[in-house]
């Protein structure tokens, strides 16, 4: 009974979320999914010589990871529209209205929006190397190290961008 009451409240409330809240949740969901894929990619990287199908799985995960980051950037651009809307209630207007919070836009958000490009291009390079080298990647130590560097650097940048997004949206959420 308690479960039904609680679940119906959940169903009722979740349906009242605005369109942009749902879109920004999807954006956040894609970001979380990328963390799972980063974990898989790093684990499979260190398993490349351990089992027969490791490379095929690694290649699939790297391509999925690039696709995920592309979609993440696409959704980021999509929800950027209401963020920068020239209305009194857009997050950018709210942040810039006060001296206390304007740094969240001029420093934190500016860094977040610009840094978001880095994982996209880094993972594009990593995906091209992994796909074009195929299984011979294992015999190319320098390229193999560059691939690991690319994955780890992209992971760090995604984490920084996510942390900066949290910092901004907790002060001025997108509605």
């Amino acid at each position, binding site marked *: 009974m308690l479960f039904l009451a609680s679940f119906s409240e959940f169903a009722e409330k979740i349906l009242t979320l605005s369109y942009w809240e749902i879109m920004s949740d999807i954006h956040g969901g894609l970001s979380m999914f990328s963390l799972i894929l980063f974990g898989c990619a790093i684990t499979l990287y260190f398993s490349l010589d351990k089992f027969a199908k490791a490379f095929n799985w690694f290649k699939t995960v790297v391509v999925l990871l690039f696709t995920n980051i592309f979609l993440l950037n696409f959704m980021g*651009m999509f929800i950027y529209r209401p963020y920068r809307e020239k209305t009194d209630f857009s997050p950018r207007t709210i942040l810039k209205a006060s001296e206390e919070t304007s740094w969240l836009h001029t420093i934190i958000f500016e*860094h977040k929006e*610009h840094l978001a*490009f880095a994982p996209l291009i*880094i993972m594009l*390079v990593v995906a091209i*190397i992994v796909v074009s080298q195929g299984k011979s990647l294992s015999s190319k130590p*320098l*390229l193999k190290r*560059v691939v690991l560097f690319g994955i780890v650097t992209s992971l760090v940048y995604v984490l920084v961008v996510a942390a900066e997004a949290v910092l901004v949206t907790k002060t001025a959420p997108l509605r």
Partner: protein
Amino acid sequence: MVKKESTTQDVKSISSLYAGSVGIAVYFVLIVASEVSEPIKKVLDFYPAVGPLLGKFVFALAAFFVAKYLFIGTLGNLDKKSLGKHEKTAAMWFVASSILIFLLTFPPVFGPIVEIFK
């Protein structure tokens, strides 16, 4: 045949590393240019709902693909030994640009650079 295939794979990989560095460099130049020059900002702002950020992404990605195409053409004529040297150089540029972009997109760092060109 195997050797030729290996060289083609290497050319694709090395050209991607160089092109990645070019894409990142072009992206940084566009960030600074859009702050310095109003006409450049207008060109990048082809979709006003999103603003110049979309233009920076699109042009930097276009620079990546153009650079990749040009590097494939240039590196494709090289022998294995020269490709080995390019592999090291390209990897170094890619790593350096990937690290530098973190700092160069930080407003307290790129702000003074913008001021120099204003």
